[in-house]
């Protein structure tokens, strides 16, 4: 399952640009908008206004939009020094407060990420089933129609059995064995396990 960006330092400079380009976002930007605005929505009004003053109110464009002339992909945040002067506190105090607010946003981003991934998993048209780091490769259905208690698992996702969204067997396996849905296109790399045959023989 593809993760969402959960880093405030990467998402907040996109805030204003995501709003300005809201009708022209690509798939990656839509994902950023999805998690950023869902997390911001859960924040206190005071925290939102604090972050907005530094990131959203910035007039200094960063990365230019390659397809929309005069538009940006990011905005440069107003410096801590300037924000400290505006707020009437020292730079150190401002920085300290900013880090606290950004940490609160990070916590919300993590929560929302968890929820969004669960929704994405539910909506998969085709999926494979996972138990820890292992994928369900094979199972048997007895002549009486119940799922046999013997299963084969693999570390290679491409060898896993694929289930359709409407599969009753898939749903039953999730319910009874607590397997989790996973995107079949995801590629994971596992360390190669080396076995010292000499030690085994001796």
């Amino acid at each position, binding site marked *: 399952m593809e993760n969402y960006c959960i880093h405030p330092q990467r998402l907040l400079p996109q805030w204003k640009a995501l709003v300005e380009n*809201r009708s022209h976002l690509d798939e990656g930007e839509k994902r950023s908008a999805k998690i950023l605005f869902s997390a911001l929505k859960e924040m206190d009004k005071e925290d939102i206004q604090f972050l907005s003053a530094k990131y959203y109110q910035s007039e200094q464009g960063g990365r230019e939009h390659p397809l929309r002339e005069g538009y940006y992909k990011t905005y440069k945040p107003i410096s801590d020094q300037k924000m400290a002067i505006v707020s009437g506190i020292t730079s150190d105090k401002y920085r300290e407060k900013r880090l606290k607010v950004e940490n609160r946003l990070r916590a919300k981003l993590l929560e929302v990420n968890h929820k969004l991934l669960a929704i994405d998993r539910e909506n998969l048209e085709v999926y494979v089933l996972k138990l820890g780091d292992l994928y369900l490769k094979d199972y048997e259905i007895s002549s009486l129609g119940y799922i046999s208690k013997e299963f084969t698992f693999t570390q290679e996702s491409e060898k896993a059995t694929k289930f359709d969204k409407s599969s009753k067997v898939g749903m039953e396996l999730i319910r009874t064995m607590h397997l989790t849905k996973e995107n079949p296109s995801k590629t994971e790399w596992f360390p190669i396990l080396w076995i010292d045959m000499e030690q085994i023989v001796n």
Partner: protein
Amino acid sequence: MELYEKTIEEIKEIEVAIELRFGVDPDEEHIELDGDLINDIAIMSEVFC
């Protein structure tokens, strides 16, 4: 009324055909914001979730 709706539909089809012919992307759905920081966050969250 039926003729009016049919005409509008045909105009839309012609617009799309012209846009495709000249390589112009059709306008995406316009997302209307409120102008209030907090409300706009809620609108953006609703649109993209």
